[in-house]
């Protein structure tokens, strides 16, 4: 309805007259994304000793992938400044939740009193005492 009218008017000029295909660009982005995916799987196969480095790498790769998708496939690269107004608050809020939860749920100020904790401590103690870690059979 009025949507279309507005749309035609708003987009008149750049999309409707003569559209230049972005096919090439999209194809490139596609390959980059595939490369990133392989990278994250590859990183896992490296069996890195330091888990944190692995995590950092993999999350960095995921973020780059997300950026590629957003910038090119979702056309954010070509949009006006409104994208910042919309996305910046969203991401700030989205980051708030896990960040605010870390001091309370991710870590614990008070002693945690659950069976898992005692189980975990027993396992760690067993590991320290030189027992072979409990072998888990794969069915």
């Amino acid at each position, binding site marked *: 309805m009025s949507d279309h*009218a507005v749309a035609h008017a708003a987009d008149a000029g750049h999309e409707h007259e003569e559209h230049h295909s972005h096919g090439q660009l999209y194809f490139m982005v596609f390959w980059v994304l595939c490369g990133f995916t392989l990278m994250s799987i590859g990183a896992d196969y490296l069996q890195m000793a330091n888990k944190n480095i692995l995590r950092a790498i993999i999350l960095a790769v995921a973020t780059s992938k997300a950026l590629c998708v957003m910038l090119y496939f979702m056309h954010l690269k070509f949009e006006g400044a409104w994208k910042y107004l919309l996305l910046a608050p969203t991401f700030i809020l989205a980051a708030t939740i896990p960040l605010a939860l870390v001091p309370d749920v991710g870590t614990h100020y008070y002693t945690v009193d659950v069976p898992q904790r005692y189980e975990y401590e027993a396992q760690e103690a067993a590991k320290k005492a030189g027992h072979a870690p409990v072998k888990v059979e794969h069915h």
Partner: protein
Amino acid sequence: MSTLHPSIEHADHVDHGGHGHGHHELSFIQKYVFSTDHKVIGLQFLFTTLIMLMVGGALALGVRWQLARPWEYMPIFGDLTFASDGGQISPEAYTMLFTMHATVMIFLVIIPILAGAFGNFLIPLQIGADDMAFPVLNMLSYWFMWPAIACFACALGLAPNWLNETFLQLGMEKLVVRGGLIAGAANGWTSYPLLSALEQASPSSGAAQTWWLIAVTFVGVSSMMGSVNYMTTIINMRAPGMTLFRMPLTIWSMFITAILQAFALPVLTAAGFMLVADRMLGFCFFIPSGVVVNNAAPTVGGGQPLLWQHLFWFYSHPAVYIMLLPAMGMVSDMLACMCRKPVFGYKPMVYSMAAIAGLGFIVWGHHMFTSGMNPALGMTFMVATIMIALPSAIKVFNWIGTIWGGRVQFNTVMLNCVAFVSLFIVGGLSGIFMAAVPVDIYIHDTYFIVAHFHYVLFGATLFGVFGAIQFWFPKMWGRMMNETVGKIHFVLTFIGFNCTFFPMHLLGIAGMPRRYADPYHFPYLEHLLPLNQFMTGAAILMGFAQFLLLGNFVLSIFFGPKCGRNPWNANGLEWSAPSPPGHGNFDVPPVVYHGPYEYSSPVSGDKDFLMQTEYVPLAQRKVHTGH
């Protein structure tokens, strides 16, 4: 939003106005039931929520009765619902009563009456659009309320037999509500796990609690559709000349509310799904292992109960501002009109609403000061909470500034608005006590809290709504409401309200805990019984006063004196449309030339108002150089 650059468009507004999108004959159903017209949807919301106000109020009177005459026979209500117990409320039933009272009031009255009813009715009219951006979505957002209401009915224990039978046959026993009305959801409107996560912990709630959660999800979907719609409409469909800082404060408040809703509500919806999964499917987000309830086997799990509180309040604190901001906006509009004076400090008003919204997202922890939260986190939340009083203070001072020097019209609208300001101050100031963590340690979960939130929710918001109903009624129906009845209603409600809720502060200081079916068997609370009885009397008075509102509303629709387009001599765009506006709203597409509050402007000559659509020639404008 400096990025908004107007571009030239071949508008076809003219085609829409009055032509009804080419549909010439709409059937009754299309016109009044499944209508996509924002005004009809707004009124549907209004009627629904007013009925729900009665339901919520009746439940509240049940609560009050128990507090005045614990364990005694309860007239009418008791016969109807607790006949098997001799008309006497059981502790389960008491718990259910306040849980469902709060649920109905919050999810089915305050939120939908503000955003749903007034948001729908006013947004397109005040920004000069012919309808919402997505009319069908708008209709859906209303109709999603009904599954929510139906689920809440099940949560009240009112599941019909055929439904129970169906679920039994489907093997979904966890959805079968057993035990009738007294078996409603009874875990508080906050539904903290583990009480709400383990069925054995709250046996009377059973499936009702699950229905409660499902209902909240429906409300969430409904509000989410509404808020996306409002934001799009306000951003993109303003009439020519309606720049952001020419928008009425009502629109600003609706816009900010929509933002709050859009970004806070999904979190509650997500948390609701998690809790439903915990209850029904053996998930364990909120259930730690090794919990023994009622001598049942220990739970397996690994989750954390505090997680729910965080997720819940991440929504529900912003939600209290969702329940307030629209009323703030509407009151600003009404005050300006009734004082014949521009709003004092328009931009500070806008900025402080934005600040309230922004800060509102980072204070949720103040509901959890005693919950075993990390104390360092408590400190940050406390500072943020206290600072949120600042934008509220700015608003209060600006309202007073608006009245100052005005030519005040003491009609029902004005009285309700003044009550709004006055009572919001009381409610807000009691918030300062609670925001101070050490004091909250003592005050938390006492009637002081109950006093606080009734002052802000009822005292502020509902009085604002009463004013708004009276103010925009002419636009809804083309008739006026009765002034005398309106004033009587106001006085009775105002007195009844204060007598009911002000003493609650004292009860709280005296250490009376909330959510107690019978506080009086603690010796130190015994002497509070007479005060409670007085409060109950006042609550009943106030409850019956609402019939005046209802009568005035319904009768005026048919018999009120007819009025023209602009009975209040107000400035907003909505007053340039016919009363009631036809499909498509405006007969002439409005063009906006000034802000909405140019009352008593020197350039307007003899009149004391200047409509937003009224063009003032340059020469005349130069007379006054102020604005």
